[in-house]
């Protein structure tokens, strides 16, 4: 596995302690590391290996471990390999540092994760709500938030009987469920 790893990536990975990487498919590298080492990894990847493009930051909620997983997807236009850097942060207090100073696109993803999961990114330029401006409930992408539960609490169920259906029912028909 490591034979196919480009030299420059191997040298970058060596500098980060406790980093574990796995080649998922061709052009896809999965990297796990400690949260405090992530900014250093990003700096090195951007500066030495041409990882100029932050494709996305994804957040995954893991309620069993009381953790958030943050995944930084980076693409190098030179090496043409995607590095997905996975870190786990505790849900309490659910804070992490912004990487906006390294990658400008991070601002959008950090703001999105803040409003959907409640993770606060220190140093991010804008943590104001973007999509859910009129929402005061808990961050909705958390696994503890149930869409159905919210609907049951907020709205009343009503019998659906429009005129056209009454007409059908009068003739002995019905909606088949």
């Amino acid at each position, binding site marked *: 596995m490591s034979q196919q790893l480009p030299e420059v990536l191997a040298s970058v990975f060596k500098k980060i302690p406790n980093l574990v990487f796995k080649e*998922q*498919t061709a*052009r*896809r590298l*999965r990297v796990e590391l400690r949260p405090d080492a992530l900014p250093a990894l990003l700096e090195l990847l951007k500066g030495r290996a041409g990882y*100029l*493009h*932050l*494709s*996305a930051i*994804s*957040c*995954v*909620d893991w309620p069993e471990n009381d953790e958030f997983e943050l*995944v930084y*997807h980076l*693409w190098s*236009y030179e090496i*043409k390999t*995607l590095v*997905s850097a996975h870190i786990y942060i505790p849900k309490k207090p659910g804070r992490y540092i912004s990487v906006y100073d390294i*990658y*400008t*696109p991070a*601002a*959008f*993803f950090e703001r*999105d994760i803040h409003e*959907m999961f409640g993770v606060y990114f220190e140093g991010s330029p804008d943590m104001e709500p*973007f*999509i*859910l*401006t009129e929402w005061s409930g808990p961050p*909705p*992408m958390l696994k503890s938030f149930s*869409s*159905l539960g919210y609907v049951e609490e907020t709205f009343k169920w009503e019998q659906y009987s429009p005129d056209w259906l009454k007409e059908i029912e009068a003739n002995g028909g019905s909606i088949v469920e």
Partner: protein
Amino acid sequence: MRPENYQPVEHPSSEEYELYFGPNHPGIEGNYALKVRLTGDEIVGIKADGGYLHRGFEKIMEDRLWIQNVALVPRICVPDPPPMEETYARAVEMIGGLEVPERAQWIRAMILEMSRICGHLFILGGTAAPIGQYSNMFWGITDRDYFLDLFEALTGARVYHMFITPGGVRRDIPDGFLDRLTHILDYLEARLPEYDDLFFNNPVFQKRAEGIGAITQEQALDWGVTGPNVRACGLALDVRRDDPYLIYDKLEFDIPTETAGDVLARSLVRRSELIESIKILRQIVQRLPQIKGPIRCNLPNPLAWNLPKGDAYARTEAQKGELAFYAVSTGGAKPWRVHVRGPSSMHAVQVLEKLCLGGRIEDIALIMFSLDACPPEVDR
């Protein structure tokens, strides 16, 4: 262009006012708002405000079976749905280790390129409309309709096809479909000079578009710009070439670029991409009849289909730029998490804000359309 005798009115700096641009956007992009601060007609502050098309796709997908989401994903982006299906399907295939039969890969590439032409025709019309050139808009939408007819013949639906499923495609192409496609491609190719006369060589458009909303190469890389917008800056970056999927490494096509990075350059790149897509489709028309075999790999009962544990990041060159899906499976029948990275997440928010700043109010719509900003993709 201002008249020669134009004298700007000198307002004191406190004469700033705020204008709510949208959410009923006068165009075809969808509901999106911009809070603009202006001095006269000069933009001194701008803030994008999304959320008007938020439908909670990512949350809904966690409550649906893997196969049910096939019906959900195309709805994320209205003008260009097939890349959504393709990217989702590929993320599922990567997690499940499914091999897509070759014939299905060719059919998928055909659908993606047809969709690219549709999207480009749509947005070229959109770029023309804010400067008053409505004929071009009507032309673009009419010519796009010919491709929607083809989609209807192929999939049964005009916009949301739900045709690309994990493991392949739903059906084989109907008899005579490739002939119909060739006919429409001939037609579009003959139409392009007319578009040149009406729009691309039109001095009104050129004067309004030149130098407006220009991005440099450094800015494009720094701001995460992708797709035709980055290629308009002179960078030949394309997921189809850099991170090839399906059969794109077997096809011959160029990656057209321009250097100016402004509204005009972005429109010209889209025009050249129409030609490249026609070129790709002609190759597919030629090769597809020789490729025999199944159109779908064997799938288990989709209602009791547990994908193995794992995660995958699939990328596609959609019509608007880099589209990616990050899917996580815990070994269950439903996705644990699906994250959608639409190209407009960058273009419609940070890039749009930065390009409009210092510009004039009449250029906001033009810049937004030239970036091909798609709000439903931002809101998800």
